[in-house]
């Protein structure tokens, strides 16, 4: 595994993100949607809402951000290069399939985590400053913040491996992105169900889910690496 080759692709991806308006808009729109709705709702809550809120975990709903933000980027990552003819020159270099895929995963992971933490932090700050004090202390709980910190990278990585797996097998960018969103809906649904107490959030559930996601993320890299086939990517056959 060559760190230099991995970072070459990561740096290239970052440069492309910065200069691609579509990518920037995609990264901004989803978090804004996730931020505005609960913000408006929470700021309008009276102080009396604090007691029922303290038994719920509505902020976990924001775990939808790391599940969705990187999925579009990851789904486009390989198929776009294939369509634009930039994949073949890269694959003719000494880069290994695993290095290429790791780079393709790291590139969307970093902004996804940064955006998720930033939006969450912004939400907490606004709530602390402008919501009723009782509502703020009911919503902003230590365990929920910890859950957000831990699950954000795990969900983002899951989302990325799903996206890349689809991207390596797809021949159309839009189809890959749509499939990737569909592939990530189960995780969004799970976090939403926990947020709204349909599934009871317990320490055991949190630990179990975290361990499961760590395993899935590791297996994901192996599975996607096994799916990576230079010949199929270049010729479209096999």
């Amino acid at each position, binding site marked *: 595994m060559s760190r230099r080759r991995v970072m*070459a692709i990561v740096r*290239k991806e970052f440069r492309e993100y910065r200069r691609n308006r579509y990518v920037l808009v995609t990264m901004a729109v989803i978090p804004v949607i996730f931020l505005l709705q609960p913000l408006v709702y929470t700021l309008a809550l009276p102080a009396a809402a604090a007691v029922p809120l303290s038994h719920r975990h509505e902020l976990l709903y924001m775990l939808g951000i790391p599940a969705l933000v990187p999925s579009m980027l990851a789904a486009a990552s390989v198929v776009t290069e294939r369509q*634009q003819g930039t994949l073949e*020159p890269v*694959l*003719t270099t000494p880069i290994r399939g695993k290095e290429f895929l790791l780079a393709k995963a790291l590139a969307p992971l970093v902004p996804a985590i940064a955006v998720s933490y930033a939006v969450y932090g912004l939400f907490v700050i606004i709530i602390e400053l402008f919501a009723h004090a009782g509502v703020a202390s009911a919503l902003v709980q230590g365990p929920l913040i910890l859950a957000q910190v831990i699950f954000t990278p795990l969900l983002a990585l899951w989302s990325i491996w799903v996206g890349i797996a689809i991207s390596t097998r797809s021949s159309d960018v839009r189809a890959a992105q749509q499939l990737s969103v569909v592939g990530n809906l189960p995780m969004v649904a799970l976090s939403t169900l926990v947020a709204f107490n349909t599934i009871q959030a317990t320490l055991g559930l949190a630990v179990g889910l975290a361990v499961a996601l760590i395993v899935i993320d590791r297996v994901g890299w192996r599975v996607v690496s096994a799916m990576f086939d230079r*010949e199929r990517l270049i010729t479209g*056959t096999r």
Partner: protein
Amino acid sequence: MPNRHKRGAALSVHDLGKRFGDRLAFDRVSFEIDYGEVFGFLGPNGAGKTTTVRTLGTLIAPSSGSASVAGIPLTAENGVEIRRRISIMPESPGLYLRLTVAENLECFANLYEVANPGQRIERALRAVNLLERADDPCGALSKGLRQRVALARALLSEPEVLFLDEPTSGLDPVATRDVHDLIAELGRSGVTIFLTTHRLEEAERLCDRVAILNTTLRTLGRPDELRDRLFAKTLTVRTLTPLADPGLVFAELPGVEGWRQDQGGGYVVAVSDPTVAAPAVTRSLVSAGADVLSISESRHSLEDVYLELIDEPKPAIKEPA
């Protein structure tokens, strides 16, 4: 980069073939290329040229046969090591259009893990006369300039074997000439070049040897060798008035093997060696009192060779030992 001094074959290919399901891309291809040689790989569209390059570049696995690339056996396990020693410029430049020329090259310099990437990039850009455009986004460059950037990218790693796949495809004549000049310069500096093209004048101008492929290898050799191998050498004689007895004029002359009258009223004389036959024919014509207008050696182009070979369903040949 110059590697003429290296021993052994830069490319050694034996009965190599690739099949995609029922479709045969190329079959039983054999040849050897020395270090420092510029080798032309000719053939019509769909002949299997690009697939051959991709196979030798470890992008796709051969279905049959064997090869060594830059001295390393062509196997899946050796993929990284082979790709480290070669460079492929695909038909489409495949540049990152939002990145500048220098950023594109920086990415590839790091993928090849070259030492002193800044110096290498500068040297590669200087080689293709693009140093002053280093900070331009590739999307703002013309097709010809993009091709030059792709060539600079291929030179970054100072490869032992440089594969150029249709490097002038879609370029206008001026851009084509520029790329030709660059390839010729690389060839003179000792870079081993495997040039696939369907432009015959390109191959004739740039290559030491050429192979003609149409799924199977049809022929291989120096362009002049191929002409000699395929076409009888002839002299074309034009006289002011028809010869009274051409049989007597051309009979028993040294180097002359036969003759016939052509449709324009001239004479086509088959010869074994024009340098021997031409003076003898001239002397004989003068002795016969003929008013000679011209005596010229018939020239066959590589295009004639190509057209002669490409349509014939001949079996694959092997390179002469």
